[in-house]
């Protein structure tokens, strides 16, 4: 029964008397102490493993209908991907956003102390890379782009390496194995 305290401690479920009991036990009982440390270590390791896989996003519109639609969407993404690969060789000009949609200026800021060149690429640039500017010799990089209302996916490219934005809460893996950040405007 005493060991369950450790589990409750991890889950932050202890009452004040239980907390007291826990602390006393950790202090006087060596076995209890090492058991606590082991369980905490295992929890850290396990949660680390859990965090390696991010749940997918849920899109009603995307899913509505049948799974066939998803397959179509995957096929579409594949062709978009091909277009992206093709476009890398050609122009580097971001595509203008539709004039009919409401636009909003959105500022992306990222901290990177090792890269000499940071770029932004996303659905709103048709996955073309656009350079981000270093802010006053600091390690912060910024760019302001007009975004339409809705969901946008993007990634930061630091010295050619594609990274998800660490400040974004939503990330997802695309069909090419890249981790993209998702932004709702």
């Amino acid at each position, binding site marked *: 029964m005493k*060991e*369950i305290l*450790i*589990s*409750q401690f*991890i*889950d932050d*479920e202890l009452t004040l008397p239980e907390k007291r009991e826990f602390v006393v036990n950790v202090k006087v009982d060596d076995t209890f102490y090492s058991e606590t440390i*082991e*369980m905490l270590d*295992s*929890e850290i*390791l*396990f*949660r680390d*493993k*859990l965090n*390696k*896989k991010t*749940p*997918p996003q*849920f899109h*009603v519109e995307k*899913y*509505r209908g049948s*799974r066939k639609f*998803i397959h179509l969407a995957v096929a579409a993404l594949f062709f978009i991907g091909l277009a992206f690969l093709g476009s890398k060789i050609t122009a580097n000009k971001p595509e203008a956003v539709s004039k009919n949609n409401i636009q909003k200026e959105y500022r992306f800021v990222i901290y990177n102390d090792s890269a000499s060149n940071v770029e932004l690429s996303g659905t709103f640039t048709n996955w073309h890379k656009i350079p981000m500017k270093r802010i006053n010799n600091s390690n912060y990089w910024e760019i302001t782009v007009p975004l339409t209302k809705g969901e946008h996916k993007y990634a930061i490219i630091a010295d050619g390496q594609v990274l998800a934005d660490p400040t974004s809460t939503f990330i997802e893996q695309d069909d090419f194995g890249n981790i993209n950040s998702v932004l709702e405007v």
Partner: protein
Amino acid sequence: MDKFQVFFDQTKKGFYHYLLSLTRDSALADDIFQETYFKILKKYKDKLSPMLLYKIGKNLFIDEYNRNKKHINTENITLSYEQTGSDNSMEADALLALLDDEEKKLFLMSAVDGLKYDEISAITGISVSNIKVKIFRARKKIQNTLKGG
């Protein structure tokens, strides 16, 4: 943010890992994940509950399993179980697969979705003291496997 969005954000992580541990196939887990939330949104928008979510998810998994047994790679399950030993490189879903269904749900609701024991108790009808024991057992199993025991 609407109620469904809140519910989705609260449950997505634990539920996704639950599906991964059932299916051991991320494409199938993704499909069931979408389908379950879609069902919830369509039919049960007014009574959102993690219990219902897990139940629908499991039923969809069973349907899928019956529909096409070839889709579920059961060989993998025994393989990674045998491989455990002192190998702590096991994936989270393989570790979760060691738990029985109830332990898994309770553990995910608590450790991953961050629900309080009394909240879980209210959802599942299992007493708080029973939940404590079951979550502890789940942790112990994971710990022993990570240790190679």
